[in-house]
Structure formats: C-alpha cells, structure tokens
C-alpha cells in the first residue's frame, strides 16, 4: 500500500506545498508500528532506540525537552520507575547555588532534563567543524522526509523515515563527487541541506550492544532510534489516538441522534 502512495506521491509531487532542494532524495518509505489511526509504539523498540540515542547521538546532540522521568511515562519506552531512578543517577548534574553560594555536582534525578553534551551552541559548533548538531527533541516533526500535499496527507511528513534515511544513507563519493567534497564533510543524498553533511556516519554494526539480544545492525539501530525520536517529538501520541477514537465514536453516535431528532421535527413541514 505504501508503495502505491510513494509512487502516487511522485505523480502528486505536483501538488507540493514546499519546494524540495534539487538533488535531495525523498526519504525511504519504511513502515513503523506507530503509524495509522490505531498504531502504537513498540516498547522494546523505544528502549533499544533510547540506548542508541544515549550511546551514540547524545555525544553531540542535545535533547533539551526530555526528562529522565519521561522514560517511564505511559505511552513511551515504559522503563520502570526504579530503572529510571538508577539510570538518572549514572549522570552527574550541576546544581546550586547552595547556601554558601557554590555550585555543586550531584547524581541525576528522574526530574532532571537529559544533559546536553556541550555547554552552549558555540561550544557545540567549535567541536563539530562549525556545524551545530540540532537538538533532537522535535526532529521528526521538524524535518519532512517527503513532500506533496496529497502524499503527506496519506503518509504523514515522513519525519522518522527522514532520520532513518539519513542514518542509513551515507555513500562513498565516486571520483567525480570526491573532487567536490568539502573537507570534513560526508556524502548523504537524504540530508535536507545535502548532499554534503557535517555529521560523519554515526552508526556501524554493533556500535551498541542491545540488552534484549537483538542484532545491532546499522539498519536495526536506525529504525530503533528513529522510532525513539518519533516518541520524543510526540510523547502523547498514544493518548491522543486513544482519546480520538473514543471522541469520534461518541460524536458519530451523537450526530446520528441529532439527525434523527432534526428529521422528526421537520417531518411534515414542507421546506
């Protein structure tokens, strides 16, 4: 089904709302468990995705909108409260000032935000060849994987697919391209401002070790971490879909009842 839509999307690239830069490929149309009106997150996948984020992405990217406590929220990875407490405590957080006016270090608490890898944007840029690694909290809502008014209506904006495609889309430049390669940049045709990207390929097989025994291929890690980032961007998605189902059911019945009332009142009144 998705294939059909992707093909249709090329036809309808047509009704595009936003222009896509020349030479940038639309994201790969992979499927996730959380798509569709009834889709939910795969807890195991979110837990694996968190591990990839923590051990790989978080070395350069901040995620300022998330707190450790969110990891045990309903509708997320749903780690236990004890796991989250233990996890948070492995981080050191600067707090203060105390009564003496001194800043001090303490172990992290569930209420703490995810610590950022750099003190500020300038430090982040200085450490990354002048390019600022964007905050990842909302990345899957801020980056469309494909365009087209009708395509996006049926398939969403493809944010998680965008992240997946960038992570799995690194290429060795051929001779022609190598001549154009700016120093310190890699070739990635899925990167929105591409094809040259400041981030070197972050994933390689077994760069993390999954706790559930899943084999950590690049493809697997890219799927897991992009699913995790879909959750961080929209942590209330499951609650939303569930409440939506109940609301629409209620409204549909209510509409039908009102229609019958209206019909009865108007019966025998020419109009």
């Amino acid at each position, binding site marked *: 089904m998705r294939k059909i839509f992707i093909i249709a999307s090329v036809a309808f690239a047509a009704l*595009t709302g936003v*222009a896509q830069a020349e030479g940038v490929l639309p994201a790969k149309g992979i499927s996730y468990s959380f798509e569709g009106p009834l889709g939910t997150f795969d807890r195991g996948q979110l837990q694996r995705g968190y591990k990839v984020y923590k051990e790989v992405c978080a070395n350069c990217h901040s995620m300022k909108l998330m707190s450790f406590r969110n990891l045990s929220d309903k509708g997320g990875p749903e780690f236990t409260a004890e796991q989250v407490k233990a996890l948070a405590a492995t981080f050191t957080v600067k707090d203060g000032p105390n009564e003496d006016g001194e800043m001090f270090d303490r172990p992290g608490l569930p209420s703490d935000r995810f610590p950022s890898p750099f003190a500020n944007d300038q430090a982040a840029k200085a450490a990354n060849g002048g390019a600022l690694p964007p905050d990842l909290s909302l990345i899957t809502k801020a980056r469309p994987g494909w365009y087209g008014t009708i395509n996006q*209506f049926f398939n969403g904006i493809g944010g998680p697919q965008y992240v997946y495609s960038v992570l799995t889309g690194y290429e060795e430049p051929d001779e022609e391209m190598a001549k154009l390669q700016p120093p310190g940049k890699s070739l990635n045709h899925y990167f929105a401002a591409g094809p040259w990207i400041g981030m070197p390929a972050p994933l390689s097989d077994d760069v993390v070790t999954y706790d559930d025994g899943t084999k950590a291929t690049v493809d697997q890690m890219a799927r897991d971490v992009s699913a995790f980032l879909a959750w961080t961007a929209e942590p209330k998605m499951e609650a*939303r879909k569930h409440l939506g189902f109940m609301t629409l059911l209620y*409204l549909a019945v209510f509409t039908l009842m009102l229609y019958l*009332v209206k019909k009865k009142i108007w019966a025998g009144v020419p109009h």
Partner: protein
Amino acid sequence: MSGHSNYQPTTRFGKWLHERLPIMELIQAQGMDFPTPRNLNYWWTFGGILATMLVVQILTGVVLAMHYTPHVDLAFNSVEHIMRDVNYGWLIRYMHANGASMFFIAVYIHIFRGMYYGSYKAPREVLWMIGVVIYLIMMATAFMGYVLPWGQMSFWGAKVITNLFSAIPFVGDAITTWLWGGFSIDNPTLNRFFSLHYLLPFVLAAAVGLHIWALHVPGNNNPTGISVKSSQDTLPFHPYYTMKDLFAIVAFLVFYMAWVFYSPNYLGHAINYDPANPLVTPAHIVPEWYYLPFYAILRAIPDKLGGVIAMFASILILFFLPWLDRSPLRSFKYRPLSRVFFWIFVVVCVILGFAGSGLPDNYFLSHHAAPADGGFHFTYKIVGQLATFWYFFHFLVIIPLVSKIERTEKAPASITEAVLAKAHDHAA
C-alpha cells in the same frame, strides 16, 4: 428588535426582571420565535458553526494563555511545556491550532454562500460589510497567533508580513519600526502580538454581535433570494433551526476532531517545530493555507507597493460587492450566467491558493525551477498573475456587466410557492 414575540412573564421574578431588563423577551423573540425562511439549506448552517468555532477558539485560547510565556527565549519551550507537561495541553493546543483552520474553512464557505445567493444585496449591505470587517479581524488575529509559538515560520512569516508596510512611501520604514517596537522583530514584537492576539477575538465577538443584529433587522436571505412575504414563508427559529444547526455543528465537530486527533500537524508547517532563528532564513517562507490566495496576489504584482495595494484591494473590494451587482434578483439560482461565473471564480480562488504555495519561478505544481532564459514558462508566478487578473476582472467587469445583461430565469412568486413546487416534485 423584539417585535416577534408575545412574551409574557409568568413568574413573579420574571415580572420583576422584565420591568428592569427585558432580556428574557429578547431571547425569546430573537433566539426562539424569530421568523426564519422555511427553505434554508445546509449552507446556512455555517453561521452557527462559525459562532461555535469562535467560542472554541476563545475557550482554548484562554487556557493556553495560562501556560504560555510571551518571551523570545521562553515562548517556544512554553508551547512544548503545554504539549508535554500540562494535563491535556496537547489536546487544547491542537484544538486551537486546527480550530483556526476550521474557522477559515467555515468562513470561506459562509462567504461563498453569501455570494451565490446574493445575500449581500439590499437590504443586507450593512450585514455583508460587517462580515467583511469580521473576516479582516480574523485574518489579523490568526496571523498574530501563528507568530506566538516562535518557531522558524512564525518568525519569518512575521518578518515578511510586517515588512509589507515598509512599502508605503515616505513613512513605510517608520511604520514598520513602530509595529516591531524596535529595529527588528524581537521581544517587543512578540509581546504586542500576544497582547493583540488576546484582545482581537473579543473585538471579533462584538463585531459578531453587530453582524447578528444586522441579520435580525431584515431577517435571513434564503436560497430563492425572494423576500419573505407572509408568515407562511417562515418557521420559528426554535426548534426548527436550533436543531438543524446543532446537527450541522456536531457533524462539523466530527470533521474538526478527525484533524485534531489524527492529523494535528498536517495544516501547519514542519519547520515551525524548529525554534525561531533570526540568522537562518528558511528555504521557502509560506503563510498558512488560508492566506495563500492573497499571498499569490501580493506576489503577482512585480512592484512591492503595487503588490501590497493589490492584496489589500482584493479584500476591500468585497465592501463594494452590493453595489457592483446590478441585478434585480438576488439568488444565482435564477441567474444562469452569474452561476457559471460564480463557479469559475471559486476555481480561480483555489488556483490562487496553489499559486501562492510554490516558489514563484518553479513550474506550476512542480518543484522544478523554470530556466531563467527570459522565455515564457508556466510558473507559479504566471499562474498567480493570470488568476489575480481574473479575480479583479470578476469583480470589476463581470459582475457589473453580467448582472446587467443576463436573462434571468423565472423566479417563483414566493418562498411558499417554491417550497410547494419542490414538495410536488418530490411526490411526483
């Protein structure tokens, strides 16, 4: 205003109140007994739908304002705080953001309905003009609301729109500086936009009050466009139209809620989930979908001031519609040529919307740039220019001319006659 009721207070308190404030009589006369043409179709339910949307926007907006912080360093995160940490904050925000789009969908249907059935014609000119004022206030309110989350499109959209005023000769720059509250879009701009975004809906509500007042003096138009001639032509507003409107409102809520729960970000821009950054210009700055036709008109004129004038003129021209239409009949139901041009006009407005959505120099409905060789290419810009021409041509030439020369079809003598003929057709 209370000539349609025989309200008699029945309780002692009712009598006491009636002598001091005859509000119950007003409610009964205007909200229940009000004689309404018996033949209104479902296009007439959008008035009630709009009133509902205004209430929804005000209620959700008041709650959002309790949790939102209008400061350049905090606004973006406070919206995410609403989305993540406020109980059902995500619901309130998605209702408000999508509610704006629903409000515009309903208002466009409402305006086109008025155009088709000649509801702007005498004696409803003032009613129509108040409606245009309401529409203008809506546009200003929605524009300022979109700035508040302080994302990339918020910031750059605000920049483009406020910069339009700099096209005004001599005082343009001074006006822009005054609007911004400084020499660039910054905290003072965000603060005043928040203040005005909170204020304008109440101005809007007052204008809606005038709109309803101006409606209740001549009474509703109706699909035949023929004036009410006897009490046979009408039904009391309650229960006939209260229940019909309520049914339509709840059916509209189904549509609205489907967006809120299952596609809450579709009508927005992805890039607005990037915080505002004055140093990084987005590749393509576009307004919300409901402004796109006017954005196309703005860009159609090669001269900046000319574009601004054309854009404002495209709305202000609506004020003159009652006098541009010279036909003795109101409803296009009996005006075959006007009907054809009405639908052409609707299509042109949709085309203008698409024309406003793409980069001017790309081929229309494509994301490929046309070569800059000076030749003719079917680009967004060209389509926008042709459609802009037709937009004004419709109002300034077609309507006055067609309404004067067209051969109208025979209209029934009264609403009752039309209704009975229809009932007869159904029976046959």
